[in-house]
C-alpha cells in the first residue's frame, strides 16, 4: 500500500474513534435524547469541516498558492458585515420573527453574489498578480470589518449583545432543517468537485498549461469559484464564522497545509479526502476539548485560530526566507 493510502486509512480510523468518543463520553440520563442531540452536532461539525476543507483546497489550487484561502480573501468579514446590516436594518425583534430558512437563503445568496463578483474579477481580470490579489483580499476584509464596526457603534446596545451571539460559530443551536439543507448543498458540491478531480490536478500546472492541455479555463475557474462561495456561505450561514469578529480565519489554512504535509503529491482525489478527514478531526477534537476541558467556557474557533495563525506566520516567514 502506498503512503498516502496508509495515511488516509489511519486518519479515517482516528476520525471514527474520536466520533465514537464524542457520541458516548459521559452520557447521563436519556440515551436516545442525548444521542440524537449529539448526532446533530456531529453532523454539523462534519458539514462545516468538509465545506471549509474542500473549499480551501480547491481555492488554493486555482490561486496557485498555499497561503490564500477564501477567508483571507475577506469572506468571513463579509458574513459578519451582512449579519450586522440585517440587525441594523431590521432590528433583532423583527429579525427573530423572520423565517430562519429565508434568512439562511438570503445570507447564503448575498455572500454568493458578492464573492462570485469579487473573485471573478480578481481571478479572471486582465492583470493577474498574486500579491495584488492578497492585498485586495485583505483590504476588502478590513473594509467590510470597518463598515461592520461602524454600524455596531451606532446600534442599540441590547441589539449588539444579540448580534454578538450570532457572530460566533456555535454547533449547539443548529436548526435541523437548516442542517439538512447545508448537508445537501455540501454533499452536492463535494460530488461535483470529486468528478472534477483530474481537471483540478491539471489546474495545478497554472493557467497557460491548463489551457494548453485543453481545459476551458475561464469556465472551470468560474465554476469552482461558485462552488467555493456556495460551500463557505452555507457553512458560515449554518453556524456563524469560526473566528467571530476578526476579519480572517486561519482554520482552512491549517487544515489544507496539515493535509499537504501528510499527503504529499498532487492527486486531488487523495488530497481532498485527506483534507476532509483532517478538518473533521481538528474541529471535532477542538469541540471535544472545549466541552470537556473548558466546560464550554470558550468558542471552538479560539483553539483552531491560535494554531492556524501561528502556522500562517511560520509559512510567511519561510516564504520570505526562500
Amino acid at each position, binding site marked *: 500500500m502506498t503512503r498516502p493510502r496508509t495515511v488516509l486509512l489511519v486518519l479515517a480510523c482516528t476520525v471514527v474513534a474520536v466520533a465514537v468518543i464524542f457520541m458516548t463520553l459521559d452520557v447521563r440520563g436519556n440515551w436516545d435524547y442525548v444521542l440524537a442531540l449529539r448526532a446533530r452536532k456531529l453532523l454539523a461539525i462534519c458539514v462545516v469541516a468538509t465545506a471549509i476543507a474542500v473549499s480551501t483546497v480547491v481555492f488554493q489550487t486555482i490561486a496557485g498558492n498555499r497561503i490564500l484561502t477564501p477567508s483571507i480573501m475577506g469572506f468571513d468579514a463579509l458574513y459578519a458585515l451582512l449579519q450586522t446590516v440585517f440587525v441594523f436594518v431590521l432590528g433583532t425583534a423583527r429579525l427573530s420573527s423572520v423565517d430562519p430558512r429565508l434568512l439562511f437563503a438570503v445570507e447564503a445568496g448575498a455572500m454568493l453574489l458578492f464573492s462570485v463578483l469579487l473573485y471573478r474579477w480578481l481571478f479572471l481580470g486582465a492583470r493577474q498578480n498574486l500579491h495584488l490579489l492578497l492585498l485586495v483580499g485583505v483590504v476588502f476584509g478590513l473594509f467590510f470589518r470597518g463598515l461592520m464596526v461602524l454600524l455596531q457603534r451606532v446600534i442599540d446596545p441590547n441589539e449588539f449583545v444579540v448580534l454578538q451571539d450570532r457572530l460566533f460559530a456555535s454547533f449547539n443551536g443548529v436548526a435541523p432543517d437548516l442542517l439538512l439543507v447545508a448537508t445537501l448543498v455540501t454533499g452536492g458540491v463535494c460530488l461535483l468537485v470529486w468528478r472534477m478531480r483530474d481537471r483540478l490536478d491539471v489546474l495545478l500546472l*497554472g493557467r*497557460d498549461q491548463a489551457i494548453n*492541455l*485543453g481545459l*476551458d479555463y475561464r469556465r472551470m475557474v468560474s465554476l469552482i469559484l461558485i462552488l467555493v462561495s456556495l460551500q463557505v456561505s452555507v457553512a458560515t450561514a449554518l453556524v456563524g464564522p469560526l473566528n467571530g469578529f476578526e476579519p480572517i480565519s486561519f482554520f482552512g489554512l491549517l487544515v489544507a497545509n496539515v493535509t499537504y504535509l501528510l499527503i504529499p*503529491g498532487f492527486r486531488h482525489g487523495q488530497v481532498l479526502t485527506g483534507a476532509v478527514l483532517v478538518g473533521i478531526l481538528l474541529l471535532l477534537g477542538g469541540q471535544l476539548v472545549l466541552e470537556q476541558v473548558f466546560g464550554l467556557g470558550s468558542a471552538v474557533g479560539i483553539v483552531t485560530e491560535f494554531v492556524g495563525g501561528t502556522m500562517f506566520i511560520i509559512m510567511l516567514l519561510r516564504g520570505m526566507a526562500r
Partner: protein
Amino acid sequence: MIEIDGLTKSYGRRIVVDGVSLTIPRGGLTGIIGPNGAGKSTLLGLASRLLAADRGTVTVDGLDVARASGELLARRLSVLKQENRVAARLTVRDLVAFGRYPHSRGRLSSSEWAHVEKALAFLDLQPISGSFLDELSGGQRQRAYVAMVLSQDTDYMLFDEPLSSLDIRHAVSMMHLLRNASRSFGKAVVVVLHDINIAANFADRIIGMKDGRVAFHGDTADVMTGAFLSSIYDIPIRVHRLEGQYVTTYALPGGPEGGAGEDPVLVAGD
C-alpha cells in the same frame, strides 16, 4: 496549416501585434526572430489561444482557436511559454505524464505510458525522471517541460524561447530534436528564438518581426540576408557562410579591437 489573418492585440494604447497575417504550413521548423518588444511572444500566445485577440483570427487546420473546444485543440496544438510554475510538488515523470491528459483524461493506459517514457528518453531525462521539479536546475526543468509537450504529441507545437536556460550543448540537441520532429513526423514546430545563428542554422522558414508587424517571412535561404536582419534589429548585421553554417557578425562600436572609436550607439526606446 496555421492561418493567421489580420491579428491585432494591444495592451492599453500600446499596439503589440499589429494586423499580422501569416500562413505556417505543416512540416518543417519555423523560427520567429526580432528585437525585444517586437511582439513575438504575444503572437505565439494569440496563436495558441493563451491570449485573446482584439481583432483577427487564427485557424489551425480550419479550427478557429478562439471558438473551437479546448479539448479538441489540445490534441492538435500544444504550446510552451517561457515561464512555468507548478503549485505542487511534481516529479519529472508526473509532469511529462500530464502531456497525455488530452488523450487519456487523467487515466493513463500502458500505451499512454509508452509515450511518456519515449518523451523522457528523447530528452535524456530518464536518470532524473523521479526527481522533483523544484530540485532541478533551470535547464533540466526546461527539458522536462519540452518532454511534456512532446508527449502531448500534437501536429502543431509552439515554443516560446525554449533555449533560454539551456547551455550550448543542450540548446543544439534541443534544436536537433525539434527539427527532427518537424521533418520526420511532419509536425509543424514554431519556435521563438533569440539567437539569430541558431535560427538560421535550424529553421526551415524564418519570420522576422518588428514593432508588432511581420517585416519578412520566407525560406531561411531567402531571408537570411544582412539587409533583412539589419532592418529589424537596427544595427548593421552581415551574414556569412562558414563550413556550411550561417554565421552572423555585427558591427562593433569602434571596430573589432574596441579601441578609441566613436561612442557606442545606444538604441533609443526599449
